[in-house]
Every structure is written in C-alpha cells, then in structure tokens.
C-alpha cells in the first residue's frame, strides 16, 4: 500500500512539473524579454543588429520573440490575457496604446524620459501625439511612416506630368489624362481593408480639417454628418469615373504596388514602407518611382500628414523594468541605431538628430513633407478605438464594392459606430 502511495506521490510531482510548462516562462535575472513584429520583410535582421549594439554597450541580454505583423495583434492579446506580457514590446501609437493604458497593462516612462533627456531627441509633433496617454508618457516612438501618393515616374512623365498636382482639380485632370491613355490612374489593394483607409483619412482631413476628424475619431461627431458625406462624395466621384483599378477588394497592398511598378497603374496612396518593398524588388528611388503629398482640396484648412508611429512600451509587470528602460532610452537616443533601423524598414526616424543624408532621396523628401506639415494625424485604424475601426474598415470595402449605396452605408455606419463607441 505504502509503495503505491509513494508512486502516486511521484506521479503527482511529475504532473506538477508538467503543468508548470503552461505557466509563463521567466527570464534569467538581468535579461530583458521583448516581443515585436519586425519579421521577414519588416527588417528582422536589421533589428537584431541594433539589439546587438545595445547588448554590447550595456551588457544586458535581450531575450526576444518576433511574431509576424498581423499575428502579433492576436499574440500580444493572448499573452496579456495569460498575464505573461514580455518586459518590452513594440506597438502602434494611438488608440491601440490608449486602449491598453486604460487597462493598466503598461508602465509609465516619465522618469526615464526625463533622465534620458528624450525631449531634445524625439521630434516634437511625434512626441506630442504619440507618447502621452492620460497625462503620462508610455511609449518611445522610434520611427514613423508617412502616407503619400507614390507613383511610377515613367508613366506619369508619359502622361505629361511635369510637377506634382498642386490642387484637387489638377489631380483630377491628371487622372482623366491617364484614364484616356488606357492606364488605371490609381491602384488600390483593399483585400485586407486597411489600405483603403488612407483615402478616407486624407479626403476628410483636406475637406473638414484635422479638428473635425479628431472629433469623429473620438465619437463626438457622426458618420452621417455633412462633412463625412462630402468627403466620401469626392471619393465616390473618383470611383464613378473609373479612376481606381477594377476589383480593388481582391488585391493586397503589394499587388497594388506591383501594378504601379509594372506600369499597369500610375499611382497608389500608401505608406513609406512601400519604398522598402520596391527597393527590395530592384526599383530605384527617385528614378523609377517618386511620391507627391496628397493634394490640397480646400483653402484655409491646415495641411496634415497621415501615418502610423511604431513605438516600444514597457509592460506594467515587467520583471526587469530597469533593463527595459535602459533599452528604450538606448534605442531612441543612439543615432546610428535609429538610422540603420529606419532604413531597413523604409521608415523615418523619430530622432531629430539623425542625419537626413542617411535616407534615400524619396525618403528625404518624405521627411521634409512631414516637417512642413501643420499637423500629424494617425491613420484611421490607429486614430479611433478598435471596435469602431472594425466598423469603418468594413465600410470602406463595402463602399468600394458598390459606391452607389453610399448614403445607405453611411446611415448604417453612423448607427453601428455609435453603438461601438459605447462598448
């Protein structure tokens, strides 16, 4: 009998150790755990090189787990649910960070920010919009992207474009010329919905202005307001005139980029990461492709730039928060790290001390455009709360599928968005 009990005890011990596997895996003392979405084409190799520089400089080991960009959104949530967030993770500034700040899952970094003197390092418009939530700083914005009209230089030269369209009328005329020549003026790959959002962002920002847009994003304005109807109306006119490629909802953003690269389409409204993609397939910046800012539509409206800001945050229960803070400060302040990393990602560094000469000509122009902009706005799905973003993103694809239903769609979205804001 005794022996059986002993065996049972052994089994119980075995089981205890087996189930222990399901719990969080703790890092060794001194290590900082990090999870991020810089895999494959988003610059894993370059990221690891920069992390290596931090390890060498400080002697602190980083233990990392990269997860693909789209999967990361789910992965980080699952880890949060299991109370096993890494010490540091990358995240998209804006409504998404706000969302987790409200859940008390992040650690404020005001002290670190002050002691590392990041005020003199981070570009002010980015620092103002991306780092502070509920009155405290939570995020180090290491780089940002800018959405502009990227085009095939040869195609637009053949269509007679000598200077970027300065007004909406000029832009529409350019589209008409291209259409007459049998080239689709605008490529769009909205299969995954988000690429369509930049059209909404810019049309609304250029007609109703950044203040109204901020209200809409915060739930203080409605999707059936005349401002939204007017912006969507401009988009509808363009779709009705056949300025967009057919079946945009069937393509990825890379399909759209390919169409422009091949010359089947002339332009695409996309973030600066498209330069990373195009450079990767052998296109030469400034020679094969270039960009111009989204044209002005109405006078008297502040000129806003749109884009996402990538940042690093520290989780509230970080086991090694001192190491984590050192990591954030180092990655932000070191200009060499910032330049290399931004280059690999086709992004712009948020560090004002990075020499603009490290960028290629197109990215230099993008940096100048953002610097000259009067406001910097996060793109739609980072500007409004996730439940509302879902409603809006679906609206864009539905509208692209059948623009004639615009009124009906906006009425339904106004109701759905109101309900989603309450959640």
């Amino acid at each position, binding site marked *: 009998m005794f022996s059986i009990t002993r065996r049972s005890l052994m089994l119980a011990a*075995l089981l205890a150790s087996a189930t222990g596997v399901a719990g969080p895996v703790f890092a060794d003392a001194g290590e900082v755990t990090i999870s991020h979405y810089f895999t494959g084409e988003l610059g894993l190799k370059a990221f690891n090189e920069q992390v290596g520089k931090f390890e060498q400089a400080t002697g602190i080991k980083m233990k990392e787990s990269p997860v693909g960009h789209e999967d990361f959104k789910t992965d980080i949530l699952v880890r949060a649910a299991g109370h096993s967030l890494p010490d540091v993770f990358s995240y998209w500034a804006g409504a998404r960070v706000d969302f987790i700040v409200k*859940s008390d899952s992040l650690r404020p970094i005001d002290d670190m920010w002050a002691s590392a003197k990041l005020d003199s390092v981070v570009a002010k418009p980015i620092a103002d919009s991306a780092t502070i939530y509920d009155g405290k700083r939570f995020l180090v914005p290491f780089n940002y992207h800018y959405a502009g009209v990227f085009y095939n230089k040869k195609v637009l030269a053949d269509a007679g474009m000598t200077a970027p369209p300065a007004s909406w009328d000029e832009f529409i005329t350019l589209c008409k010329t291209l259409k007459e020549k049998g080239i689709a003026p605008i490529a769009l790959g909205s299969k995954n919905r988000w690429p369509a959002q930049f059209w909404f962002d810019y049309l609304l920002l250029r007609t109703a202005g950044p203040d109204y847009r901020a209200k809409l994003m915060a739930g203080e304005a409605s999707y059936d307001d005349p401002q939204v109807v007017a912006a969507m109306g401009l988009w509808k006119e363009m779709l009705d005139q056949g300025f967009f490629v057919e*079946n945009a909802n069937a393509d990825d953003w890379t399909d759209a980029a390919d169409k422009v690269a091949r010359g089947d389409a002339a332009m695409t409204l996309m973030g600066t990461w498209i330069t990373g993609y195009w450079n990767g397939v052998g296109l030469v910046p400034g020679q094969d492709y270039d960009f111009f800012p989204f044209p002005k539509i109405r006078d008297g409206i502040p000129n806003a730039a749109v884009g996402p800001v990538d940042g690093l945050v520290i989780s509230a229960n970080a086991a090694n928060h001192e190491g984590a803070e050192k990591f954030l400060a180092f990655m932000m302040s070191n200009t060499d790290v910032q330049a290399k990393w931004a280059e690999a990602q086709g992004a712009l560094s948020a560090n004002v001390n990075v020499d603009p000469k490290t960028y290629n000509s197109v990215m230099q122009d993008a940096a100048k455009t953002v610097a000259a902009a009067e406001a910097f706005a996060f793109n739609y799905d980072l500007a409004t709360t996730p439940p509302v973003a879902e409603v809006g993103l679906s609206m864009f694809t539905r509208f692209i599928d059948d623009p004639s239903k615009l009124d009906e769609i906006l009425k339904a979205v106004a109701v759905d968005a109101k309900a989603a804001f309450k959640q």
Partner: protein
Amino acid sequence: MERHNTVWRIALLAPPLSVFAVFVFWPLFSSFFYSVTNWNGFGSDYDFVGLDNFAKIFTDKLFMNAAINTTIWMAAAIVVPTLFGLGLALLLDGKVPGGRAFKTVFYLPICLSAVIVGQIWIWIYQPDWGLLNAVLSNINGEKMRYAWLAKPDTALGSVILAWSWQQTGLSMVIYLAGLTAIPEDLLEVCEIEGAKLWQRIVFVVLPLLTPSTVVVIALSVINSLKGFDILYIMTGGGPFNSSDTLAMHMYNESFRKYLMGYGSAISVVLFLIALTIIGIYFRQLKKVDRIYG
C-alpha cells in the same frame, strides 16, 4: 487486488486527464466565466455584466449573418463532399484503368494543409489572371474578370467549393472501403435477376453503404465545425462580413474589437450548438448500430 487496479487506473488516467484539465477544461470554464464580464483582454479590469453579452447576441446583426452563413457552410460542407465522394467511389470501384492513380489524385488534397489549399484557390479565383476566369473566358468568348472572393454574393460559395475539393477525397476513400465490404455475389445475383445498374445502386449498394455514410457525415460535420482556417486564409470573413461564420465572428469580436467578454459569450453559444449536434449524432449512431451492428 480490485482496489489495487482502481488505484492504478486512476494513476494512469491522471496524466491525460491533467493535460485535458489544463488545455481543455480550464479554457472552457474560463470562457464561461468571461462570457458574463465586459473584459477586454488586457489587464484584470472587468465588471460582471450578467447575461448582457448573451442578450446582445439577439440584437447583433453580424451574429445573425454569421449564424446563417454557418448553416449554409455546414449544409454544403456535408452534402457536397459526401455526394462527390460517393460518385467518385462508385466510378473508381473495381477495375478501372488507371484507377489507382485517380484515387491518389483525388485523395491528395486532404494531405495538404488548409493554408496551402486556400492559397491554391486564391490563385484560381484571382480576377486578373486566375485559372477560373481564364477557363470561363474561353467558354464564354468574353473576357471574364469576376473577383470571386471579393464579391459578397460569391465569396462564401467560392470558399465552400475549395473546401469541398479538399474534403471529397476523404469521403471517397471511406466509401471505397465500404464498397469492398459489399459481397460480389450479391450484386451478381441482382444482375442475373435482371436488376438494372441504377436499381442495383439505389436498392442494394446505397443501403449497404449506410454505415460508411454515417462515418462520412460525422467526419464532415466535425471538419466543417473546424473549418475556420481556410476561411481565414481565403476571405478573412469578408468582403464586409459576407463570409463570416460564427467562429470567424467570435474571432473578430475577441481579437479585432478587443471584446473578449462578448467573444466568450459567442464561443459558449457555439459550444452549445456543437454539443447539440454531437448529441443528435450519437443518438443516430445508436440506431444505425442496432440495424447494422
């Protein structure tokens, strides 16, 4: 001795049971728990909202849409592979020239992962250069550029077709096994007695294949409930929710909208539906066993 055995049984069952407890029962009960909260997935900040999440299901247009799609998906995922599998098995049974090669070809898709099958069919459906539009253009004489997966009226059907293509091989193999169990003499007698081919199939072969049909349908139901991956790859529930199933809807609410509480309520409803289907299946299985077992 008896007591000794009992202890050993418990000891031996303990490892699998504990794995189940951690990876099945614990998440299951967590879902029940979270379904009565407004938890958003981050942190441990939530309120109890009673049955609000379940009440919301009744007013959620997207839930109703997903429920209808799930019904269509399950019905099609049961009927189409079963019929095609049966048809192929009847054609390939016996001595068909190249039969072995055909069987391999038809069975092959089931060995592929849903991700690969999804990708292959995305290419087939691609509007600009996809195979399907090319074939239709040849038949039709006009240039077809229909975006099968990007149009709300065809998205779900297109995924079902891809799914059926993958699953048909499995039903075929089960039916082929069933066919080998039917005695040759019986069919010969029928033939001598003057029964026509269709009479032999309808009155002799099909009834004797009932046990195979039960297995095929059971597997189809189970596989169709699991059919989330191919939808996720091919349409992601889109365009604008037109191919959302309940599993997809649950995923969207939980992981895209960060409404874990509501997502959990949907998963509880899904669980109850699956439980009901399995219950019905077991009852039918008993009946079949009584007749054929």
